[in-house]
């Protein structure tokens, strides 16, 4: 890899992002499958970094999954988005940050389409008034929440308790970074590093001591494909694409995968279980598989959060081998406990991929 050349390309895809005062909107998938990640993001930004991130309880889905499952018209998705912008304006904010990559793509597509076709923006403005009696102002700045952690990655490194380093060997952990397709494939200039060399996760990995794995299918989709997962009959598409990625990354023996899209870590985690149970194959020598984490979980680990507060027990791929490599202190007995140490039982051990 010619690093200088890539750095030159990355330089063309940098964006200045505001330092503070954000209007935060949640992700349907992240809050359902990785709820602690949003809790961690807000704790890091508000309490570790001292920033203002406001959440308005009246905000809703952006409709993005329905839009990309072709279940609602484009005008409907745009009007829901216009309502979200109106709520931001009413709350007194101008910087909009979303937790979801599908949302980030939808917001970007909406703003770019309105820019190109102002008459459509006018029509949506009228739809919003007719349906909600609201008026919107477009955000002065639109960010994905991973952009924020990227921006403050060095501050996080300064507060770090652990590094992405194998404490036994002293070598950097080998990290696969997986970018959600809708972060920058549609509008490369809106993402750090563009679509070809996205830097948003690379920057975090390198700032926290890890080494990024460059493998052939690095930019391949995780396989969600909206209707290709949501319909049971179509799920072969989804697992096949994940399989393709794992076959491609396997020779590099990654220690973990970091993602910025809420859906990708679910698929990269759960399809490893399915592949293992169907074929007997796991993608790590120890038989546990490769942990696929959200960037909030990785930031939380680095900052010394309790792994079970981060929700690492709700991944199917066991996290303990990574904790051991990083030297993270944890209580194995607390893994599957509820609040006040409530006994919630334990998940069954799968046949082929080790869990407990």
């Amino acid at each position, binding site marked *: 890899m010619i690093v200088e050349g890539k750095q030159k390309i990355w330089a063309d895809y940098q964006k200045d992002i505001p330092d503070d005062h954000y209007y935060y909107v*949640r992700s*349907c*998938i992240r809050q*359902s*499958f990785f*709820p*602690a990640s949003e*809790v961690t993001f807000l704790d890091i930004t508000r309490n570790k970094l001292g920033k203002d991130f406001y959440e*308005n*309880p*009246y905000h*809703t*889905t952006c*409709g993005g*999954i*329905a839009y990309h*499952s*072709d*279940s*609602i*018209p*484009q*005008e*409907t998705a745009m*009007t*829901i988005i216009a*309502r979200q912008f109106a709520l931001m304006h009413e709350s007194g904010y101008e910087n909009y940050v979303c937790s979801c990559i599908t949302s980030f793509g939808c917001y970007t597509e909406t703003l770019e*389409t309105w820019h190109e*076709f102002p008459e*459509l923006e006018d029509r949506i403005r009228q*739809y919003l008034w007719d*349906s*909600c009696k*609201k008026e919107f102002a477009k955000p002065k700045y639109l960010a994905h929440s991973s952009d924020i952690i990227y921006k403050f990655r060095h501050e996080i490194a300064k507060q770090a308790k652990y590094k992405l380093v194998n404490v036994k060997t002293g070598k950097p952990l080998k990290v696969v970074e997986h970018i959600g397709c*809708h972060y920058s494939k549609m509008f*490369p200039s809106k993402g750090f590093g563009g*679509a070809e060399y996205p830097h948003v996760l690379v920057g975090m990995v390198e700032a926290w001591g890890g080494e990024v794995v460059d493998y052939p299918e690095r930019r391949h*989709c995780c*396989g969600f*494909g909206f*209707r*290709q997962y*949501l*319909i049971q*009959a*179509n799920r072969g*598409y989804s697992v*096949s*694409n994940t399989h*393709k990625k794992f076959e491609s990354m396997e020779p590099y023996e990654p220690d973990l995968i970091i993602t910025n899209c809420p859906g990708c870590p679910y698929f990269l985690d*759960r399809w490893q*279980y*399915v592949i293992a149970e169907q074929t007997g194959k796991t993608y790590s020598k120890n038989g546990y598989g490769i942990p696929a984490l959200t960037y909030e979980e990785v930031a939380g680990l680095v900052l010394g959060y309790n792994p079970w507060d981060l929700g690492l027990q*709700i991944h*199917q791929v066991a996290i303990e081998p990574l904790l051991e490599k990083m030297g993270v202190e944890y209580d194995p007995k607390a893994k599957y406990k*509820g609040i006040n140490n409530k006994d*919630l039982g334990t*998940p*069954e051990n799968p046949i082929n991929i080790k*869990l407990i």
Partner: protein
Amino acid sequence: MFFNIPNFKKKGGEKVSEVKTDESNEFKGHLYEKLQEDYRVKEGLKACMNCGVCTAVCPAAEFYRYNPKNIVNIVQRKNEDELEALLKSDTIWYCGECMSCVTRCPRANAPGLIIMALRKLAMESGYYMESEKGRQQYVLVKDLCNNILTKGYCVYPRHFGYEEHKEFGTVGKWICENLDDIHKRLGSNLDGDGPGGLRKIPQESLDQLKNIFDVTGATKLMNKVLDDAHQQAQKENLSDEDYFKKVYTINNSNKHLNIG
């Protein structure tokens, strides 16, 4: 996908409309004209030079018998018969909308956006009912619109059942069995008031989403899809619920897969 959701359909007793797939279809002969009204075609179709890079990078083209270049070609040729056949086929439903094609196209076309416009037209014209993959829209529209209108979210964990998602794994099964305790442990505000993850969306906001659906055409499209499915279920002597399960699971894979 979410069998344990409350039943959600049009109020009973309404007469369902006929699926127009014959000569009486008002869209017949006007498909290209209709497509051009869609902003995704205005944005997504400039001038395709048939290089095939979109197909080379496409995750769907590797898995299904699918070639986005050919689809763009058909639209570009403006041939109404070819367009009609395309809208009636499984082909347009193979795309995963990852938009990898958009990055790669050297002429700034967006085959993924063109697909989205074709799918909408297939649903409006009723042609989607002629393909196995097209008929799956019933499941998606019913569940996703239900989640948006009743919960304010596209995905809602109480509607994500383990039995329909065995890939959720042994940990997923444990999560489903301890949903409230786990979300509480991890800081969710599941179905609670105020801010926080998975909070109960205020009724005022849900009412506004319903109004948006009514004003922007989502309600009309949703009702059409539910009507079409109900009518098809009757033709097949199935209850709506059994038809839903059939559409959700049936997979004539030999026809679809890029194998052999």
